[in-house]
C-alpha cells in the first residue's frame, strides 16, 4: 500500500498505524503520530487502519526555541 510517510511516498505493508511503526523500527520509540493532519493518540494506533494515499507524520522530541 502506498502512503506518504513524513513527506515521502512509501510502499508499506500495514495495515494499521501500529504496524507501520513496527515496520519502520519505531515501535516503543518516543514518537507521536498524525494521519491526514489529525493527531492519533498512542492508544489508538492499533485500531487505525491505514488507507492508500494516507499522509502519516511520525515526530519525536527535538531542539526548539
Amino acid at each position, binding site marked *: 500500500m502506498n502512503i506518504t510517510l*513524513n*513527506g515521502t511516498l512509501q510502499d508499506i505493508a500495514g495495515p494499521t498505524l501500529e504496524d507501520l511503526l513496527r515496520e*519502520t*523500527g*519505531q515501535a516503543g*520509540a*518516543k*514518537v*507521536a*503520530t*498524525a494521519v491526514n*493532519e*489529525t*493527531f492519533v*493518540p*498512542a492508544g489508538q494506533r492499533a485500531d487505525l487502519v491505514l488507507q492508500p494515499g494516507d499522509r502519516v*507524520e*511520525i*515526530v*519525536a*522530541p*527535538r*531542539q*526548539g*526555541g
Partner: protein
Amino acid sequence: MPTFYGTEFASRLMLGTAQYPSPAILADAFRRSGAGIATVSVRREADGGEAGQQFWSLIEGLGVALLPNTAGCHSVREAVTTAQMARELFGTPWIKLEVIGHADTLQPDPFGLVEAARILTEDGFQVFPYCTEDLVLCDRLLNAGCEVLMPWGAPIGTGLGLNNIYGLRSLRAHFAEVPLVIDAGLGLPSQAAHAMELGFDAVLLNTAVAKAGDPAAMAEAFAGAVSAGALAHQADPMPPRDMAAPSTPVLGKAFLE
C-alpha cells in the same frame, strides 16, 4: 518571581534548546543561566527514533520545566495538531503557540493565533502565545483563555532588542496582572535588563545564547542582567527629564571668581 499557570519559578529566564554547538554546551548554558523553563519542539523522526530518544534523555537531565512549541506552523490546523502531538510526547499541557503569518519576518498571524488559542484552551492546553505587542490582539488572546502573553521584542533571531518600547510599556500598563514574557528578538543582556526595567516578568532566549561565541558565559550574563533589571524595576526608577538638574547641592558652594 514569575508564575505561569500556577507554577512559580525562581528564574526570569526561559531558554531555548536549539542551535548550540554541542549537547554539552547546551547543558552548561542551562546550568549557568539558572533558567527554569526550556523550550522544545517536535520534528519528523528519520532514524528509527534514536535522535529523539537522545534529545529526550538530554533535556530530562536538565531538571527544568518543558515548554513545547509549534514553531514553523503557518495554519491553525497545523498548530493544533502539532500541539496535540507535543502534549503526548512531553507530557505537559503547556504549549508555546506559534502561528506564523509572514515568511520573512516570522511575524505571528494574529487571526490564526486567537483561533488556535481558543481551540487549544478548550482542549485543556495552557497556552503561551507568541504574539506581537498589539493591545487588541493581546486582549483577544486573554479572552480566548490565555493566562500568559509572550510578545516579541523584535523578529525571531534578529537580536535587535526591543523594537517598540512604547507598545511594550503600554502592554505592561494595560495588563498589570498578566504574566508578560518577551519572547523573541533579544541579542544582548542589556536588552533583557531593559525588558525587566519595563516590568516584564521574564524573557525567552535562544539564538542570543546559542550563537554567542561562548554560549554558557552569555547565558550567565543574561541571568545577571535579568536579575539587575528586575531589581531596578522593583526599586522604582526615577522619571527621566529633559532639563539638567545638578545632583550636588548648589547652596554652600564657594564663590571663587
